[in-house]
């Protein structure tokens, strides 16, 4: 009886932790109208994650519309619901965690480049220092400390909104109430970076 209660005591919190973890689906909304191309997110990401010079976990595209308006569109790994980069990995080094974040296990990555070729968004690269595939992790090391991803924290205009899709959050509220767009829908990747006011020229 004592044993049974001990098991119950031990397993109940564990089960609730697991359920809590499974319940999160991290995502990001980027409001294009709020981005003015300061590159603070790019710099913050590079500093936070030791991104090698010349490579980018996130970048900002400058688009000049036919009427002359300049628009800035931040891009990064879309942490897709159906990630095309996952199946080709020969060792399962690239995986998605319980919160839907697509990550790379450096210990398992042999550096074949298959995932880089498979990403339709050009969000992956081969890290020349580590010899492994590299990409945005939503700053998972910061998430574990209840901190926001570096790019979100650095954005001076709040153009990037980060949160869980399965919990009550600003992000979920926006996605539920405002029209949003995603990139390259024809790939069936079901990307989880949502844009507000994304011009059609940027969908490439």
């Amino acid at each position, binding site marked *: 009886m004592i044993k049974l209660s001990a098991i119950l005591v031990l397993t109940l919190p564990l089960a609730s932790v697991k359920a809590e973890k499974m319940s999160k689906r991290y995502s990001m909304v980027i409001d294009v109208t709020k981005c003015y191309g300061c590159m603070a997110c790019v710099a913050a990401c590079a500093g936070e994650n030791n991104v090698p010079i010349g490579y980018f976990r996130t970048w900002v595209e400058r688009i000049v519309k036919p009427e002359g308006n300049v628009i800035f569109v931040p891009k990064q790994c879309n942490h897709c619901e159906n990630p095309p980069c996952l*199946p080709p990995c020969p060792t399962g080094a690239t995986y998605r965690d319980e919160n839907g974040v697509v990550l790379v296990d450096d210990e398992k990555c042999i550096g074949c480049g298959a995932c880089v070729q498979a990403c339709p968004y050009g969000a992956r690269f081969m890290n020349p220092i580590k010899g492994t595939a590299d990409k945005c992790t939503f700053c998972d090391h910061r998430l574990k400390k209840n901190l926001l991803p570096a790019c979100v924290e650095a954005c001076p205009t709040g153009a990037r909104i980060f949160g869980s899709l399965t919990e009550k959050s600003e992000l979920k509220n926006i996605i539920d109430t405002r029209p949003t767009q995603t990139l390259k829908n024809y790939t069936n990747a079901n990307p989880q970076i949502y844009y507000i006011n994304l011009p059609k020229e940027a969908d490439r």
Partner: protein
Amino acid sequence: MIEYFYPNEAATPLLWEPVLFAYTLLVSGADLLILASLGYLTKKLEKTIPLLLILGISFFSVVLLGPLADLRSPHKAPLLFSIPHISPTYTTPGISLIAFQSILWIIALILSIVFMLLYFSYPMYLKSKEVERFKGLYLAFSLGVDSREKYDKLSLITKGIAIILLLPATLWGLYPSTLLISQTWSFVWRNWVMLPVIYFADTFVVATAIAILVYFIWRRRRMEAEVIQPLLKVHAAGSLSVSALTALQLSIWWFWFDDSIIIQSLTTITSWMFIVIALLITSFVLSLIALRFLVISILVSLVAFAGTIANKWNILMNSQLISKTGMGVFELHLPADWLFKTASPIALAIFLLVIISSLFPLEVKEVG
């Protein structure tokens, strides 16, 4: 032209280096094994089987050296076999073609070696009786098959292995084109819809061109029509198929992409396709002439090599230089040691060919 590409593409435009190009040529080893198996089962290429088998094993056994040399962390390559991603889970969905084909490579290689040993068993016994030197070695390779009756009985098992070998060898013949079209998002590969069939036919062109070349070097003016003509026929069919399918692919692109930016991006690829078509049609015509004048076979082989090298280079190298967006083209900058690195696996295949052909005969007079 408006150029648009992702910044990470600009950092490493040629992600898969030319050493993988050697890989695409060495894959023809799988087709040589297909021809050897079919030859054994149908008794149509009977006199060519030893040549095809030895060539096939020499090339196929080193096929993975190309990708190994291209890995950024080659010391972790054994993980490919110890934790292959061949069963889908929530965290790692799908199946990796690279892992699947690597496992299949081991199976195909073991099957082909067993096939070769069984095929050569009785001829090895006969050879052991003819020679004094290495008599014991030849006897060992005879696997105890010391009579025609035993060899005939064994042929049932040999046929079974030849049949099983056809499946992994065919899948290898279709690979890596299946990987390029299904597990990458390169603009060119995704839209190269005829790629698997072009590639499959092209590996037969390479396979037969290699066999013709080796046979020519080996026999020179003593070539036998019985050996070379079946090879020339397969080669002619392969060359014509690749030319026709490449022309069809060109037409499909012209029909699909009326967008001038994309057509401009594809200029390099399409111009190389014309070269491939011209060379392989020439090879086809030369094959037909060579059926009557055997000495021309060497020209068939050389022209086909030029065509198929252009084709494989176009598929693997030039295609990588087009952005995933289809709206940008990068310049080709090859690493300084690319030729050495690319030639090394091929040189090792030739070295293996010399070793294996010194043990087993390229021509067997007494077969089952």
